[in-house]
């Protein structure tokens, strides 16, 4: 409190970490003034849904997780502006051109940006990642003159981007460094399944191929790429989807310690006692000698926003993400993962079942006969059950016997537990 007025909490960034923190903080501190600043949009929207706006499944307003009036009702002020500078010592920040905003508690939820690895031509017009509202606009503009597109880097965004371009009838080439799609995350068989799916969808997938440079058409626009195999592919659109890295420039400029991300402790507080960081931009400093933790998926952003709000409200809590999970959809193939999969845990073994048509699979990863990870393709599993099995290190035999407990497929879908159990059990001996 300064001069008897309400404590003012400012949240920079309105992504999942930022808006979760704002809502939680409002709950914990009904009297505080809360302001959420973003240069991207006034109202929070769901970032993963941007692709559906492009595809015509939804309108932009349908991607907002809350009706606009909710923010007024819960008294969270929304400011659409970019934050230019932060005076950490004086606890104020400059917003937009000439506005100065004072704060008592500050949260940086700055998100991340697509990686660029110093390729020649990487900043040409027509070369972009797919992350923000501005990227959506830029892509739409570029596509008006696009006859062919190249996507650099595998992963989820790569395949989503390919699907988006395909929906507009634009031929797509994917350049992927690995020998099989996303095999740094997916185990071998699953990765091959996705690779086959991509090819079946008609995308031109080039494995073990990297980008060498993007060629300028003489007017600052991309006109082709040259690959590591020396091939030149004519294209007007180049999608960069080789991962993202934390946005740290603002924090760096204002003197906060940064590593890969904005450095924070377990309660997500930075070195400055009035500043927190959460979500994609934060790096949680590990124990001595350990690598810091940067987590950049939806639910970790949500959890971190929640923990940061607790710290800001005066009841700090240690961030504990629990058993890892994630899910995605490759074209029409659904994917779910729980726990440790493809992490080369010493002593791990895995049992694997694949449906005959190669469009569904289940993998149980276990160590000393206890479950440590589950990977499912084309099946829906119950989060609650998988999480409990892994947390309690359930015996893998028990898991196989009780697979139906974890089935989350809709009614009338064919249940294949006996078949799956036989296949998995057979590999345990």
């Amino acid at each position, binding site marked *: 409190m300064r001069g008897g007025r309400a404590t003012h909490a400012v949240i920079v960034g309105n992504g999942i970490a930022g808006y979760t923190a704002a809502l939680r903080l409002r709950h914990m501190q009904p009297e505080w003034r809360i302001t959420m600043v973003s240069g991207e949009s006034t109202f929070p929207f*769901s970032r993963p849904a941007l692709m559906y706006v492009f595809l015509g499944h939804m309108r932009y307003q349908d*991607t907002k997780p809350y009706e606009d009036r909710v923010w007024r009702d819960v008294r969270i002020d929304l400011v659409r502006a970019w934050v230019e500078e932060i005076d950490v010592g004086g606890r104020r920040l400059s917003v937009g051109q000439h506005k100065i905003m004072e704060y008592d508690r500050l949260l940086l939820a700055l998100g991340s940006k697509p990686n660029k690895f110093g390729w020649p031509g990487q900043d040409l017009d027509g070369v972009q990642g797919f992350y923000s509202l501005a990227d*959506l606009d830029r892509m739409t503009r570029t596509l008006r003159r696009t006859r062919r597109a190249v996507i650099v880097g595998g992963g989820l965004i790569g395949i989503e981007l390919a699907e988006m371009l395909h929906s507009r009838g634009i031929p797509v080439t994917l350049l992927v460094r690995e020998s099989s799609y996303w095999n740094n995350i997916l185990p071998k068989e699953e990765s091959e399944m996705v690779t086959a799916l991509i090819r079946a969808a008609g995308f031109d997938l080039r494995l073990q191929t990297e980008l060498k440079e993007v060629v300028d058409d003489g007017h600052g626009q991309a006109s082709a790429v040259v690959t590591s195999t020396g091939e030149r592919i004519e294209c007007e659109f180049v999608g960069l989807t080789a991962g993202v890295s934390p946005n740290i420039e603002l924090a760096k400029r204002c003197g906060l310690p940064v590593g890969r991300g904005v450095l924070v402790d377990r309660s997500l507080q930075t070195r400055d006692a009035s500043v927190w960081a959460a979500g994609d931009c934060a790096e949680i400093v590990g124990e001595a000698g350990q690598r810091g933790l940067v987590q950049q998926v*939806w639910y970790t952003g*949500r959890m971190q926003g929640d923990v940061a709000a607790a710290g800001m409200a005066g009841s700090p809590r240690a961030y504990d993400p629990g058993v890892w999970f994630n899910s995605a959809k490759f074209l029409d193939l659904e994917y779910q993962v729980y726990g440790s999969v493809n992490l080369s845990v010493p002593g791990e073994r895995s049992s694997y079942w694949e449906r005959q048509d190669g469009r569904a699979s289940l993998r149980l990863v276990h160590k000393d006969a206890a479950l440590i990870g589950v990977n499912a393709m084309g099946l829906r599993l119950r989060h609650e059950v998988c999480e409990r099995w892994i947390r309690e290190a359930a015996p893998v035999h028990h898991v196989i016997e009780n697979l139906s407990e974890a089935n989350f497929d809709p009614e*009338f879908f064919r249940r294949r537990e006996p078949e799956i159990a036989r296949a998995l059990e057979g590999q345990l001996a």
Partner: protein
Amino acid sequence: MSIVGEHTSACDEEHHALVDPGSSRSPSGSWGVRLGSGLIVLGLLALLAAIEGQQEGRVVLGLVGFGAIACGAAGTFVAVWSQRFAASNNHGVFFRSAQSQGIVAWALAVGMTGFYVILYWFPERLERMTHLLDPVATLLAGRAADHWFLYGFVYTIAVLVFGLRMLVKHRGNPYQLWRTASLMAFQLGFAFLLPHLMELARQPEFYFTYFWPLKWSYVFPSGVSELRGHPGGLGVFLLVWSAVASLVATPVLTYYFGKRWYCSWVCGCGGLAETLGDPLRHLSSKSSTAWRIERVSIYAVLGFIVLTTALVWTHASGHAPWLGGAGRRLSDWYGFFIGSVFSGVVGVGFYPLLGSRVWCRFGCPMAAVMGLQQRLWSRFRITTNGGQCISCGNCSTYCEMGIDVRAYAQKGENIVRASCVGCGVCSAVCPRGVLNLENGRTHGDRMVGHQGPWTRLLAEPPFKSTDAERPQHRKRHS
């Protein structure tokens, strides 16, 4: 210092972000699509010639026209949808004029409401078209066609043809396949063929799958005495059927399966909404204002029909002569305002503007009764898969009942809503496999979400949704 919640600046941001599909080069236009659309055009021409013409073979020409339109549409749907995979089911929905309240949608809405106005109040204008169906009516019902026969015929064709579209579109999803097949079968068998075949056998034209309060007239004194007076035991059987269906089967089935057993598997209104209306399901409003209106209007209609039923029986009992013709008048009003204007003209005619379930959501008294039970005493719920929701909004967008499904899913809560008809499309469109329609072992745990370490953080505090407590500082802003 100026910190203003610039709520108004959202407008430009929204237009800004709307994607223009100008350069869309979708890979449609296969020979199947061309053949199908060609057949539709020829069928329309044949139908027009048959309606306007005087020649001898106009009835045959008309039937050929109906057949060509149906086959052409069916062929087009198969050609378009069999090439797509499930993830692209909704590609381009918001870019098409007919599906996004554009000029085509308005034209369709005018055409469809016009059809209902003529059907209800100027049926003589349909006479030439109606008589094209005389051979069909003779075959099925042993009489000439009237405008209601025409309506039932066109309605059933629409359910079958657009049902086929659903079957091809959702061919990888058994839940959608079974319930669509069920709707098609009930419409064809129980809402079209059977009543007419009963006529043919000189029995009452009876619709087995419509009950009070949706089909109010069956329990009105006039309807009851007509059935009771029918020679042979069938009339009495039909009375018992109506009573058992309304009073026993409905509550029992709704307890075990939710109202979907009827709305998404049996009902003819639901049948049309889930087939003809499927391309328009996303148009339902998800705003909390629409929800408020829904809660008033649907129970108002229920109150209206309960009161009307009570009055006509009181009148018929002869104990309240002072009522005069109040019951009669009320039932006339109900028939006009609710039966014709609401469920027909607005309910179906406005499909292209308000979505496919306007009647079911805002008006249907049967849905109201089952909805109350579903909310309070049923094993049915839609469950949320732990913390997997990414708030994308596909579920809410494609909910034909306008339920903001995401609001529950992102909190990790089960969805237990009176209006949910259990169509299962939220589960089908979810890119993260988050939603599942389930019948629990008891109704007691239907509101509970999944429990896990994420539960606490997903559960949002109960915010006061009122402006009354807004602090003063908001008003000081420059």
